């Protein structure tokens, strides 16, 4: 109003007065140990939560001044190391969570990157729109969804989320904002979607949602007897399904190998709606508060004792029995109840115990998918490390540079990291990776923790990697943006500029390892749903000399500031 000059950021009345002594990020930013959602990979980093674009730019500058690199983090739902950054700065983007516009006529929403899928659908469902692509949980941010180019159970029909983005603004580390669409800066558009946050920060995302006639899906459950049957029934339903997903009992061997259950879902038309008055009410789109009589907040504790090979075999057996009994039944489900199965059990990841789990998704061309998946399932059983949850989906190719999709199938697998035997799991996935690469398959970085640079190079191709890195050196010439995943995937590419030059070469992790979990970490996690482990016994890696002094300071602060 009458205020002639905008006040400097530090005088903002609503903000914490941090770093007033102005001695750089190393002194002012707290050190936090953040983990991937699988709980098997973690890293200590300086943590900042910008609340405005100006603060994002300021963070770039501050990091540059201090010789640090920067990674972005949304809700921390990537399973592996996409949003962790050892020894660098992590920018938590969840503070930028505003919806900038919503047009209920065209179904076009414009959002900041920190808005979650949940924040989006809660507003749009009342006007009869549902996000065209959603992952299995509603917690991720749109920025994270774009950076990993997530897909849903309808990938075969509508492509990944990137196919529904109209345009976005990308803030580069040089302080420039690029408007990117299929027409404008098309190369950046197709590389930054799925670009793992290595090219710049999404600051404004405009995407088109899907008009739905009702708040319901009609779901049909089908039991399958073995892998061939799973594939055959899947294929038979593909043409008529809006969504199609298969659960595979990865513990079943022999003739039952690959048995499971399919869920075929279709949008319910307006004239079939049992309750049209309330169809679009947010209250209709809910998840159950209890599962089998157990309150969902403590459900993971009941799951924990079953997270062994024998326990999962027992549970899967019961599930197969019930699925055979209910074979062919159809029922109505809300969009939320069908789409967000992973949100039924809050903190379900904790059921895997202290060493966490590895999520690993393989994509296989349709011709050889069945044969390769058979080998992979058999291998996991032979090694005594079957996947405790395996999900089969169908995909189609898309135009994004680092895409994981192809004309074929994928199987997403959760492997419990066997305490003390992480190397055995790593060895097994290496064999699986070899099978997938030999078959011409692909991988998905949000669900990965084990691919090596040479593996990524093999399936992406040298030209693709070169294109991506050239774009990176153009947009981010001093390689300010990095992450554990970025270093893992691109580090050994000759001439790579992703490798942060400021970092001592010895500190670059070449192979993934599963650092031991801090003893008290599980307990802390129980109390707070945030994927933050505040007090590790030891800061891993070469940064520990710097980090441990930082950490001492921040732990000291933490003890003193409880209000």
């Amino acid at each position, binding site marked *: 109003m009458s205020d002639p000059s905008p006040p400097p950021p530090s005088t903002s009345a609503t903000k914490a007065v941090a770093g007033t002594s102005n001695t750089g990020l190393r002194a002012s930013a707290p050190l936090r140990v953040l983990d991937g959602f699988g709980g098997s990979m973690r890293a200590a980093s300086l943590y900042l939560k910008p609340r405005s674009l100006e603060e994002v730019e300021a963070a770039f500058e501050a990091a540059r001044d201090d010789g640090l690199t920067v990674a972005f983090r949304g809700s921390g739902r990537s399973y592996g190391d996409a949003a962790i950054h050892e020894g660098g700065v992590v920018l938590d983007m969840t*503070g930028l969570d505003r919806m900038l516009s919503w047009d209920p006529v065209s179904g076009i929403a414009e959002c900041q990157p920190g808005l979650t899928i949940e924040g989006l659908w809660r507003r749009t469902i*009342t006007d009869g729109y549902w996000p065209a692509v959603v992952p299995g949980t509603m917690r991720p941010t749109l920025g994270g969804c774009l950076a990993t180019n997530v897909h849903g159970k309808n990938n075969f029909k509508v492509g990944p989320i990137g196919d529904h983005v109209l345009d976005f603004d990308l803030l580069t580390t040089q302080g420039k904002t690029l408007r990117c669409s299929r027409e404008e800066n098309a190369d950046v558009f197709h590389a930054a979607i799925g670009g793992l946050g290595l090219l710049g920060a999404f600051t404004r995302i405009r995407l088109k949602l899907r008009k739905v006639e009702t708040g319901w899906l009609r779901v049909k459950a089908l039991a399958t007897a073995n892998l061939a049957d799973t594939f055959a029934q899947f294929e038979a339903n593909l043409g008529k399904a809006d969504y199609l997903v298969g659960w595979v009992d990865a513990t079943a061997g022999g003739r039952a190998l690959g048995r499971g259950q399919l869920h075929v879902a279709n949008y319910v038309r307006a004239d079939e709606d049992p309750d049209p008055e309330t169809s679009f009410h947010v209250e209709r789109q809910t998840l159950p508060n209890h599962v089998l009589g157990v309150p969902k907040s403590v459900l993971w504790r009941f799951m924990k004792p079953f997270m062994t090979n024998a326990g999962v075999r027992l549970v899967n057996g019961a599930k197969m029995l019930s699925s055979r009994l209910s074979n062919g039944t159809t029922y109505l489900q809300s969009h939320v109840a069908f789409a967000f199965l992973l949100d039924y059990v809050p903190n379900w990841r904790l059921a895997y115990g202290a060493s966490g789990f590895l999520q690993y998704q393989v994509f296989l061309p349709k011709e050889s998918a069945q044969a390769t998946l058979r080998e992979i399932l058999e291998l996991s059983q032979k090694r005594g490390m079957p996947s405790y949850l395996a999900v089969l989906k169908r995909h189609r190719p898309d135009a994004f540079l680092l895409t994981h999709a192809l004309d074929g199938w994928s199987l997403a697998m959760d492997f419990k990291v066997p305490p003390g035997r992480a190397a055995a799991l790593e060895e097994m996935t290496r064999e699986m990776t070899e099978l997938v690469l030999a078959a011409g398959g692909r991988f998905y970085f949000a669900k990965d923790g084990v691919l090596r640079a040479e593996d990524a190079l093999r399936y992406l191709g040298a030209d693709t990697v070169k294109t991506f890195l050239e774009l990176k050196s153009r947009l981010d010439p001093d390689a300010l943006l990095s992450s554990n995943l970025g270093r893992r995937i691109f580090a050994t590419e000759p001439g790579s500029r992703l490798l942060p030059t400021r970092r001592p070469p010895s500190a670059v992790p070449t192979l993934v390892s599963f650092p031991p979990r801090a003893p008290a970490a599980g307990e802390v996690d129980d109390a707070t749903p945030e994927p933050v482990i505040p007090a590790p016994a030891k800061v891993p890696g070469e940064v520990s000399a710097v980090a441990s002094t930082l950490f001492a300071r921040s732990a000291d602060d933490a003890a003193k500031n409880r209000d």
Partner: protein
Amino acid sequence: MKVVLLGGTSGMGRSIARILAERGDSTFLLGIPQTDLDASAADLTARSPKHEATGTALCDLEKPDTFAPALDAAEAALGGLDAVIVTAALFATQDQLEADIELTRRLVTVNYANTVVFCEHARKRLLAKGGGKLVVFSSVAGERGRKPVAIYGSSKAGITRYLEAMDHKFHAEGLRVLTVKPGFVKTGMTAGVKPPPFAGEPDQVAREVVAAMDAGKTVLYTPGMWALVMLVIRWLPRFVMRKIGF
């Protein structure tokens, strides 16, 4: 309801503003900087069921001469005033404050003196219309002189007493004062500080604040567990307070 929010662009204020906009209340944002106000106003407009536009005005708690013009602009734009919500404040750790006396001066000025001045401007406007709601965020830090929040807590103790007196003095005239005393809440203000047990989420706190405001309560501890924690702290004898670090 016609609501003005100071500090409605971030943290708990942002969550409260969203709840109000989503249920169809008219909102007006005061704060700084303008870019933040614009983005939050767009957010509230998009969330409003009827796409009702949210107005903004620059208002800096460090500059008392911005208060009256900003409230005038809000009242004019809304065509009245039913509630004023203040979530803005400064926060700094005791270490930072002890190391920097100028920072201490700023913090106690903003959190006490200037907040009182802002509330006086707001109170007069509300009473001129026959009453209304004044919702102000204090803190559990103001309940007792405590080592880790010695200075910040004293500024909040002052505002708590002021609000209590406003309720005593003007309740009969129709002013409804709600003093909100949050415990630890995970917001940008506390980013990087390790959350203690019973830490709250901004959305949960915001729902409780709106419910308390609607119900006409005078004091709200949130999350609720902090009422119990502070009950114990208030009765601890001095020799114990000298010994413990809480």
